């Protein structure tokens, strides 16, 4: 079997641009998804069922349908309604953020509910309000426990951003597929893409391990 390094070299500037875009899409998805996820998670935890219901429904929808479908709906349906025309990058960021938010909301909820009830009771018995108790007592403890599942979700998000290729967002897999189409090759484009994704996910898990160890010793 021959392995054509020359076509990888030829495509390397595009793959580099694609990698940067993948990183950008993932970071945007992580940032927006986390903020939105916290909000939705807290929303779902409300005691009043009627107020919690829309958040519950949101999570059900975004966890229960494929990201692939969500990207297509947002790209061809939602974005044109608001921008007049569609835009692959905007559609991808929205789809990734909304999808990640559903999972992250559940991570937040699980993290907060895993903290012993006595912690909230102790904080409240000292005269702290619910918000103060959350901020100074519950969330600092919960966030430590949320790092491993959040890291997991971020890694999933990097990999799933590859689905954006289907709506012509020029990230890694878009260029990989172009290369495959131009030269009728399988191994070079897809192995190269796989290696790039591996480097990205390994770097992220390395950073998360560092963070986890730092918090543990504190």
């Amino acid at each position: 079997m021959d392995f054509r390094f020359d076509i990888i070299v030829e495509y390397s500037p595009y793959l580099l641009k694609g990698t940067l875009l993948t990183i950008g899409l993932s970071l945007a998805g992580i940032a927006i998804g986390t903020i939105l996820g916290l909000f939705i998670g807290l929303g779902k935890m409300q005691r009043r069922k009627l107020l919690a219901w829309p958040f519950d429904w949101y999570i059900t929808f975004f966890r229960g349908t494929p990201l692939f479908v969500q990207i297509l709906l947002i790209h061809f349906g939602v974005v044109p309604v608001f921008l007049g025309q569609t835009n692959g990058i905007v559609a991808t960021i929205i789809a990734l953020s909304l999808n990640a938010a559903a999972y992250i909301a559940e991570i937040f909820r699980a993290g907060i509910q895993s903290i012993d009830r006595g912690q909230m009771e102790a904080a409240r018995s000292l005269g702290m309000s619910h918000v103060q108790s959350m901020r100074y007592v519950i969330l600092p403890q919960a966030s430590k426990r949320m790092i491993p599942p959040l890291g997991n979700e971020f890694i999933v998000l990097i990999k799933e951003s590859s689905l954006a290729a289907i709506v012509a967002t020029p990230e890694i897999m878009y260029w990989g597929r172009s290369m495959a189409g131009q030269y009728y090759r399988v191994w070079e484009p897809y192995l190269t893409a796989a290696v790039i994704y591996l480097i990205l996910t390994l770097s992220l898990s390395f950073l998360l391990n560092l963070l986890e160890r730092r918090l543990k010793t504190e």
Partner: protein
Amino acid sequence: MIKVANLQKSFGSHKVLNGIDVIVQPQEVVVVIGPSGSGKSTFLRCINLLETITDGHVLIEGMDITDKGTDINKVREEVGMVFQHFNLFPHKTVIENIMLAPLKVRGIDENQARAKAMELLKKVGLEDKAEAYPASLSGGQKQRVAIARALAMEPKIMLFDEPTSALDPEMVGEVLEVIKQLAREGMTMVVVTHEMGFAKEVGDRVIFMDSGLIIEENQPKELFENPQHERTQAFLSKIL
């Protein structure tokens, strides 16, 4: 100081408190005893509204905490609580545990809060543990920190929910000693406990509860030596 009138509490269809009436005078130490499941912990937790109250009234210094208009956070500032399982904040050092509420609720400055916290740690004999994390403390030490944390808010009333039940026997004494000291200083207290010796020594009044009712209440000597009700007699004969 505390006035409880016809307090009732249900968990679903299960009735835990069937109408409790108690008045606690300033500087009085009231000890609550009774078999497990008698509702004594629930009664205590209703006093600072850690449990929602199904019916009846609880007045703390004239403020009715069952009234929706009452700011419960303000009331809780005056009512310290010590829990069976300590509930220290594990992510904060001992001194940070004590300083947190005075800083965030009372809004006093850091130096003042630190000085007050050190003073309280000295009082409970743990000034050398100020920078330690709760995980490195023994049960007795944790409970003494928890008492110091509650005292940091300078409460007028202290509630103790089985403060020695989760401790190894050799650590019970050090915690009870701190509580006795508070009693001598004239703190108003309600203590739920299984320590009958402590109840006799420190209590101004002992309340015996069973199945969500106050069966009998009296001065400790009278109640322990001459119980009137047969359920009290049965309970005391089992434990003494």
